[in-house]
C-alpha cells in the first residue's frame, strides 16, 4: 500500500537534507553537539580578572534576591533603618504567613500554576506538531507558511489588547483564567525552536520507515517524533512556563484582584494595601519562590535550552 510513496518521497527530498541526516542518531552525544559547536571558539583560559568580573556580575544578579529574603525575615522597623540589614532576621516564617494571607497569594499561586501549566502544555504540543510538519513533511506552501510563522514574531501581541479585552468581555470571560490562557496557547518561537531541533535530530529514514510500515502521520508523530523530541520539549515547557508565570500586562488588564495571577497579586502589595515593608518583601519572595526552585533544580537545562534556541534563532 505504501510502495508508491517511497520513491515519491525520495524524489522530493533535496540531497542536502539527506546528507544532513546521515548517521544522525538521537544519542546523547548528538544532543551535546547542539549545545556547543565542535570547532567552538573557546579561545582562552579565564584569568583572575575574568573571575573577579564574573563574581561581580553574579553578585549583582543574586544580591537583590538575597536581600529580598533578608528584608522578608526582619520586621518593618529594622528594614527601614540605615544602614539597612544585611543578615537574615528571625521573622521569616511569620512574615511569609502574613503576606500569604494579606495578598491572597494562595489563590494567585494556584491560578498561576493553572495558567502557566496549561499554556506551557499546549505550546509544547502544538509547537512539536507544527515543528515536525515544517521539519519533515512536504506540503505545498510550506516555506511561505514558515515565513508567516517567523513574521508573526514581529507582531507585538500587546497592540491588540483593546479589542482582545472587548472580545473577552463579550464572551463572558472577563476576570476568568481562560481569558489569559487563550491568546497564548501557541508560540511562534516554540514552533521555530522545535522545527530547528527536529530537522537535525530526527532522521528522514525513521519517518520513511514508519511510512513503509503503514503508519499514518499521527501515529508517526506519536511513536517516532515524540520520543525523540522529549529533551527539547522539556526545555520549551520550562521556558514557556517561566514566561507565562511572569506575564503581566495582559493578565493585569483582564483579571482583577478577586482572581489574580501572582504578578497581578503582587501589585496589590505595592499599591498601599500593605504598609509593612517586610511583608511586601515576603510577598515578593513568595511570588518568586516557585520559579527559583525550578531554577535551582533545572537551571542547567533552562540555560542550555535558551542557548540552543539562540544558535539557530
Amino acid at each position, binding site marked *: *500500500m505504501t510502495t508508491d*510513496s517511497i520513491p515519491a518521497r525520495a524524489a522530493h527530498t533535496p540531497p542536502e537534507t539527506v546528507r544532513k541526516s546521515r548517521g544522525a542518531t538521537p544519542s546523547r552525544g548528538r544532543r551535546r553537539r547542539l549545545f556547543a559547536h565542535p570547532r567552538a571558539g573557546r579561545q582562552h583560559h579565564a584569568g583572575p580578572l575574568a573571575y573577579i568580573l564574573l563574581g561581580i556580575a553574579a553578585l549583582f544578579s543574586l544580591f*537583590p534576591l538575597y536581600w529580598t529574603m533578608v528584608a522578608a525575615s526582619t520586621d518593618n522597623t529594622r528594614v527601614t533603618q540605615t544602614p539597612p540589614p544585611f543578615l537574615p532576621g528571625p521573622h521569616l516564617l511569620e512574615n511569609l504567613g502574613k503576606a500569604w494571607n494579606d495578598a491572597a497569594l494562595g489563590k494567585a499561586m494556584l491560578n498561576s500554576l493553572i495558567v502557566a501549566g496549561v499554556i506551557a502544555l499546549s505550546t509544547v504540543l*502544538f509547537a512539536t506538531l507544527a515543528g515536525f510538519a515544517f521539519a519533515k513533511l512536504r506540503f505545498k506552501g510550506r516555506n511561505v507558511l514558515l515565513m508567516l510563522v517567523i513574521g508573526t514574531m514581529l507582531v507585538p501581541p500587546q497592540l491588540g489588547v483593546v479589542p482582545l479585552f472587548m472580545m473577552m468581555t463579550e464572551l463572558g470571560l472577563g476576570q476568568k483564567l481562560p481569558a489569559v490562557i487563550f491568546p497564548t496557547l501557541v508560540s511562534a518561537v516554540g514552533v521555530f525552536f522545535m522545527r530547528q531541533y527536529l530537522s537535525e535530530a530526527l532522521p528522514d529514514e525513521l519517518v520513511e520507515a514508519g511510512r513503509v510500515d*503503514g503508519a499514518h502521520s499521527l501515529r508517526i508523530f506519536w511513536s517516532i517524533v515524540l520520543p525523540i523530541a522529549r529533551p527539547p520539549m522539556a526545555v520549551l515547557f520550562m521556558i514557556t512556563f517561566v514566561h507565562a508565570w511572569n506575564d503581566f500586562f495582559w493578565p*493585569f488588564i483582564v483579571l482583577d484582584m478577586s482572581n489574580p495571577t501572582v504578578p497581578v497579586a503582587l501589585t496589590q502589595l*505595592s499599591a498601599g494595601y500593605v504598609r509593612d515593608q517586610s511583608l511586601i518583601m515576603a510577598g515578593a519572595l513568595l511570588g518568586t519562590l516557585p520559579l527559583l526552585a525550578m531554577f535551582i533544580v533545572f537551571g*542547567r537545562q533552562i540555560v542550555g535550552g535558551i542557548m540552543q534556541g539562540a544558535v539557530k534563532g
Partner: protein
Amino acid sequence: MAISTSTPSDGAPGTAPPAGTGTGGDRRRRSTLLHRLDVRGAPYAFVAPFFVVFAAFSFYPLIYTSWISLHRVELSTLNLMEWVGFDNYTALWDDDRFWNALLNTITIGVLSTVPQLLMALGLAHLLNYQLRGSTFFRVAALTPYATSVGAAALVFTMLFERDFGMINWMLSLFGVDNIDWENNKWAAQTAISSIVIWRWTGYNALLYLAAMQAIPRDRYEAAAIDGASRWQQFLMVTVPGIRSTIVFTIVLSTIGATQLFGEPLIFGQGPNGITGGADNQYQTLGLLLYEEGWKNYQMGRAATVAWAMFLLLIVVFVVQRVVQRVAARKA
C-alpha cells in the same frame, strides 16, 4: 483519520494488507486513498492550531484595533460604538501627555536597552572563556529572568527608597546626598531602567554566548597570526561573528521597551503608578494606554495609543535598517 487496514507494528514490514481476495483489493484501494489524504492533509492539520489561534487572538485584534480607534467606545458600554472618524487621533496629537509619554518611552528605552546589551556582550565574552564553574555563572546570570516584573519592581522600589533605601545609603558612603528617586524625572527613569537591565542582561548574554560558541576557532587563530590583540580579536572576530544575534536582541529589546508597563506602574506605588508619577515624569505609552482605557474609560482613545506604539516600533525598525545599511556600506 485512522487507516483501518494499516498495522503500524514496529519493524515488521511483512504485515502488509492480506493479499488475494476481492475485499482485500477493495480495502487496499481505499487505504491508498486514505494514505494519500493523510500524506497531503496531515501537515496542514499539524500547523493549523498555530495559525488558528494566532489569527483569532493576535491578528484579528490587531486589525480591529484600527477600527476601534475611529470610534468613541466607553468601558462601561463596550457594545455602543460611535463613529468619530479621526477625532481620537487629532486629540492624541494635541495632547501633551502623549508627547511626554512618547519621549519617556524613548528615553527609558534607550537607558535600559543600550547598557543592557553592552553589558550582555561583555558578560558573554567572559562566559566564553574556558571557565571553572561555568554552569554556576550561567545560572546565576539567568536567575533574574526567573523573577516576575511584580517581584523585581517591588524589590528595586525598596532599594531605591529615598530615606532608608540601600542605594541611597551606599551613595551616602561616598558623600552623595539622598536622591529622590521617585520624584526626580531622570532619577526615576534611571531606576526603572535598572529593573529592566537587571532582569534581561543575563538572558541576552546567553543568546550572545551561544552565538559566540558557533564561531569557528580558526578565525581567531588567523586573527592572532595577523597580530591582533585580544581586544582587536573581540572587535574584529567576535562582534561581526554574532552580528545577526545582536540584531535579533536589538529587535527583541526594542519591542520590549516600547511596551514597558509593569516596571513604572509598580515603581509608582499606588495611584501614582498609572499616571507614571505625580507629574507623569515616567509615564510610558503602555501606561498611557492603560490610563485612557481603564482609568478614563475611553477604549477608542486607548486603541489610538496602541496604534501610536505600533508606529513607533515601525519607525524604530526603519531607522535601525537604515543605520545597518549605512554601516554595512562603510565596512
